[in-house]
C-alpha cells in the first residue's frame, strides 16, 4: 500500500506535470531542429513566434467566447487553433520572403542568419507586446479537471491522490497526434522525403531536382503548426505571458541540442529528459521517501535538491554535461 501511495504521489507531482511540460517542449524543439536541419541556422526568434501564434489564438478565442461559442468540456482555444496556425504561417513565410531568403541567395554564413533572427526576435517580441501587452493573459475555459485528487482517493481508497487536468490530457493527446503526423509526413510522403534529403545533403538534393524554395516553404508551414500548437498548449496548461515564452527558448534549444540538432527523434527525447529533470530536481521528495522507508530512516529535510527557481540551471547543466561527452548530442546530430 505504501509503495502504491509513493507511486501515485510521484505520478501526481512529477510524472504528469513533466510529461505535459515535456510534450510542449518537444513540439517547440522539433521546430528548432527542423529549421536547423533544413535552413541551417539557429532560429532565435522561435519563442517569440510561438508567442505570436498563441496571441492570435487568444484573440480569436476571446472573440468566440464573446459570440457565445463553446465546446465544453474542451477549451474554446482548440477551435481557434487553425486561425492561429494560419497567422503564424503568414508571419514565418513573410519573414522568410523579406529577410531570410536574401541571405540564402547570397549564401551568407549561418552566423549572419542567426543575427537576422535576433532582429526578427526583437520585432516579433515588440509586436506581441504592442498588440496584447506584456501581462499575463488567461484564456482557458471549459472543464478544469478530468478527475480531481479527491475523486481518485475515493475511487481507489489510497491516501494519496492523482489529479488529471483537461489541459494535461489535451496536451498529451494533441502532441501524440501532431508528432505521429509529422513523422508519418517526414518518412512516408514525397515532400517529407525530399525534406530529409535536403537536410542530409543539400547539393545532392538540388541535383536530383528538388525545388529548394518549396522545401523551405513547407518547413516554415510545419514550424507554424508546431509552434502554435506548442504555445497554445503551454498557455492552456499554465498561462500566457510574452516574457515567459521568450524564456522558453532556452529549454527548447537545450532539448534540441541534447537530442542532436537536426534530428527530430532526438529533439523529442531531449525534451522529455529536460522536462523530467527540471521537475524532478526541484521537487521535494520528503513525502515520497516517508512512504518507502521505515520510520527510523525517514528523512528530516525536504529532500529537495534545488529550489524551483533554478530550473533553467538544470537544463543548462544537463546540456553542457552531455555535450562534453557526446559533442553532437545523444542521437547523432549535425553541426554546421
Amino acid at each position, binding site marked *: 500500500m505504501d509503495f502504491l501511495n509513493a507511486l501515485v504521489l510521484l505520478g501526481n507531482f512529477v510524472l504528469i506535470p513533466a510529461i505535459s511540460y515535456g510534450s510542449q517542449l518537444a513540439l517547440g524543439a522539433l521546430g528548432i531542429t527542423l529549421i536547423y536541419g533544413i535552413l541551417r541556422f539557429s532560429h532565435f526568434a522561435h519563442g517569440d513566434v510561438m508567442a505570436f501564434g498563441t496571441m492570435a489564438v487568444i484573440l480569436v478565442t476571446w472573440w468566440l467566447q464573446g459570440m457565445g461559442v463553446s465546446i465544453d468540456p474542451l477549451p474554446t482555444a482548440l477551435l481557434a487553433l487553425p486561425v492561429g496556425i494560419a497567422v503564424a504561417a503568414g508571419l514565418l513565410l513573410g519573414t522568410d520572403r523579406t529577410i531570410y531568403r536574401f541571405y540564402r541567395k547570397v549564401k551568407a554564413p549561418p552566423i549572419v542568419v*542567426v543575427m537576422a533572427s535576433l532582429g526578427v526576435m526583437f520585432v516579433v517580441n*515588440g509586436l506581441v507586446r504592442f498588440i496584447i501587452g506584456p501581462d499575463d493573459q488567461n484564456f482557458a475555459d471549459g472543464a478544469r479537471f478530468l478527475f480531481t485528487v479527491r475523486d481518485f482517493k475515493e475511487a481507489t481508497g489510497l491516501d494519496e491522490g492523482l489529479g488529471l487536468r483537461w489541459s494535461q490530457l489535451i496536451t498529451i493527446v494533441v502532441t501524440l497526434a501532431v508528432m505521429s503526423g509529422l513523422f508519418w509526413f517526414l518518412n512516408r510522403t514525397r515532400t517529407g522525403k525530399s525534406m530529409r534529403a535536403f537536410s542530409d545533403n543539400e547539393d545532392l538534393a538540388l541535383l536530383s531536382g528538388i525545388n529548394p524554395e518549396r522545401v523551405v516553404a513547407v518547413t516554415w508551414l510545419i514550424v507554424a503548426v508546431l509552434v502554435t500548437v506548442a504555445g497554445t498548449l503551454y498557455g492552456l496548461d499554465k498561462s500566457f505571458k510574452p516574457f515567459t515564452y521568450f524564456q522558453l527558448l532556452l529549454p527548447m534549444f537545450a532539448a534540441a541540442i541534447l537530442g542532436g540538432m537536426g534530428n527530430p527523434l532526438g529533439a523529442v527525447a531531449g525534451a522529455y529528459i529536460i522536462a523530467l529533470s527540471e521537475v524532478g530536481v526541484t521537487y521535494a521528495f520528503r513525502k515520497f521517501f516517508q512512504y518507502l522507508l521505515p520510520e527510523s530512516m525517514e528523512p528530516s529535510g525536504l529532500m529537495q535538491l534545488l529550489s524551483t527557481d533554478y530550473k*533553467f*540551471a538544470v537544463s543548462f547543466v544537463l546540456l*553542457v554535461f552531455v555535450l562534453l561527452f557526446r559533442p553532437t548530442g545523444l542521437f547523432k546530430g549535425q553541426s554546421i
Partner: protein
Amino acid sequence: MTLRHASYFLLMAVLLVLVGVLQSWSVAMGLLNMCLISAILALGVNIQWGYAGLFSVGTMGFVALGGLAVVLTSMPPVHEAWSAGGLGVLGGLAIGVLAIIAAVQVHRRMAKGWARLAVQAVVVIGGFFLYRAVLDPAVDAIEGTNTAVAGYLGGAGMPVILSWVVGGLLAAGAAWVIGKVSLGLRSDYLAIATLGISETIVAIMKNEDWLSRGVRNVNGLPRPVPYEVNLQNNPDFVAWAQSFGFDAVEGSSIFVKACYAVIFVVVLALIMWLSERAWNSPWGRMMRAIRDNETAAKAMGKDVKKRHLQVFILGSAVCGIAGAMLVTLDGLLTPATYQPLRFTFLIWVMVIVGGSGNNWGAVLGGFLIWFLWIEVEPIGIWAITNLTAAMPEDSGLRAHLLDSAAHVRLLTMGIILLLVLRFAPRGLIPER
C-alpha cells in the same frame, strides 16, 4: 577614422545637446552616463565577437556579476551575520569546490570505465549532500539575522571605485570556469550554453539571499561622488549653480551626473586605449587570423583553444567592469532587472550596428543604440498622440495604442538591426 566617421560622433553629440535643450539638461546628462556605460559594454562584446568571432550571448551574467561585486566590496560587513553563519557558508562553499576538483581529478587520474563513473558519482553526490548539510543551517542563520535591513553577509566596506576592479576580476574568474567548460562547443551550441549560464548566474543572485539579499535588493550603496542633498545645503554651491541659471535641485543633479560622466569617460578612454593597442598588436593580428581561418591558424602553431579562452576572459572582464559601474550609478542592486533582451541582445545590436571588429564602431553603436532605446519611447508616444488626435477621447483603440507605445522600442531595435544587417552588414564604422 575618416571625416565621415568623425561626423557620426559629432551628430551623436548634437543629439545629446538637443535632448538637453528640448527635455532637460539633467535628462541629457543621465543619458550620456548610460551611453558611456553602454559603450564599455559594447567594447567588451566586441572583444569577444569582433576580435575572435566568439558567439557568446552570456553578457548579462557578467554584467550581473559586476553588480554583485559592488555589494561585496563596498557595503559594510554585517558582523552579526558573520558570527551567525559566516564560517558555515565558507566551509560549505569550500566543500562544494573541493568536490568538483576531486571529481575532475578522478576523471583525469583513473582509467576510463564503469569504475571511474561510479567513483565520480559517489564524489559528486556525496559532495553535494555534504555541501548542503554544512551550508543550509548557516544560510538559515544568516538570513535570520535582522532580516528587514540585512539578512546577508554584507561586503568588505572598501571604497566603491575599487569594486569596479573587483567586478572585472569576478567576471574574469567566472569566465575562466565557463570558458574551460564550454569553449570547446561549436558556434551555435556555445551561444545556447552561454545564454543558459547567464540565466543561471542571475538565478543564483535572485535566490541566494545570504549573498546579496536576493530579490529584496541592496540599496544605499556608497557613491564615489557627492550627494545631491549635501550640495543643496551648501550655500557656496547654490550660488555657483545660480550663476549658470540653475536652481539648487537641478544644479546639484546635473553636477552629480557630470562627476559620474567624468569618471566614466576616464574609464572608457582607458579601456579604449588598451583595446586599440591590443587590436594593432601582433596579438590582435593573431586573433583575427584565428577568427578568419581557425585551421590555418592552428597549422601555424597557434593554440586556438587557449587564445579563445584568453579573449573570452578579457571581454567578460570588461563587461563586469561596466556592470559594476552601472550598479554604482544606480546606487542599488536589483537582480530582477537583469533580463537577456536588455543586457545581452541589446548589446549585440550595439556592436553589429556600430561595426563589429572596430572599437570606434562599438563605442558609436553603444551611444546610438542606447540613445534610441531611451528616446524612441517619448517619440513614439508623441507620434501616437498626434496620429490618434482625430479619434474620439474615449476610443478604446486610442487608449490601447497609447498604453502600448512603450513597446515600440523593441520593434525599432529589431528593424534597425535587420536594416543594418541587410544594407550595411559591416556596420556604421566598418572594420579596417
